[in-house]
């Protein structure tokens, strides 16, 4: 049975669900951040598969812009995590559940 576009749909869906599970399961803020990157990559894979299905260039350019936004997001997010580590000496998100500290 040859590989068709539905397989890529299932694969990216599985990767996205694994990212959701990791976000819900872990307490380390950096691991949660990495799971968000995993979900972004699952969406990128799906967009490239759609671009192949419909022979369309625009989807691949959207992947390019998603990578741009992800790079900017990682820079700001890691700065926030480093700042939080400097304040409370932990990356446990359960410490952040109250706003005053």
């Amino acid at each position, binding site marked *: 049975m*040859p*590989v*068709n*576009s*539905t*397989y*890529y*749909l*299932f*694969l990216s*869906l*599985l*990767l*996205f*669900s*694994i*990212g*959701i*599970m990791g*976000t*819900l*399961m*872990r*307490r*380390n803020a*950096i*691991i949660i*951040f*990495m799971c968000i*990157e*995993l979900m972004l*990559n699952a969406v*990128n*894979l799906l967009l*490239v598969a759609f*671009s*192949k*299905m419909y*022979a369309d*260039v*625009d989807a*691949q350019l959207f992947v*390019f*812009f998603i*990578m*741009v936004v*992800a*790079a*900017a997001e*990682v*820079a*700001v997010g*890691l*700065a926030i*995590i*480093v700042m939080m*580590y400097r304040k409370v000496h932990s*990356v*446990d998100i*359960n410490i952040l559940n109250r706003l005053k500290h």
Partner: protein
Amino acid sequence: MSIYDILFWVLSVMSVGCALGVILSRNPVNSVMFLILTFFSISGHYILMNAQFLAIVNIIVYAGAIMVLFLFVIMLMNLNADVEPQKGQLVQFAGVISGGVLFLVLLAGIKTASPVAIDKASIDIGLISNLGKVLFKDYVLPFEISSVLFLSAMIGAVVIGKKEDTAPNTEEQ
């Protein structure tokens, strides 16, 4: 079974297994390594789908830049498996159940999608000359705006990460 199918299955098993390794390994450094492997296998998928430019950009940007940044931060904080916070069994179980239910719902939504043979489509669409033409003809404005986004992200990261030694509330230490 053609070579395309074999490569697809090998890369799929590798990406899903490494993604599971990201969320299951206790040590954050191992998680980063698994995530780098996941990105490499996704780049392999891009090459299989003739998106060569995106495959290279994925390796350079994600595996090269972003993951090195993650690794720097983890090693800066000296995180390892001993200080890793763990959620309770019930919360982890609930997380797995909710992720699995989401997977099932989306699967039921797309299982009737009509399949399109993916290796028969046009092969020169992902080359950098085609992408560059479209990028600089139709998407010039988003391209320029993304430079402003990068500039603001850079300034924001510097402002957030700056040591506030001149702050008035120094009685915390």
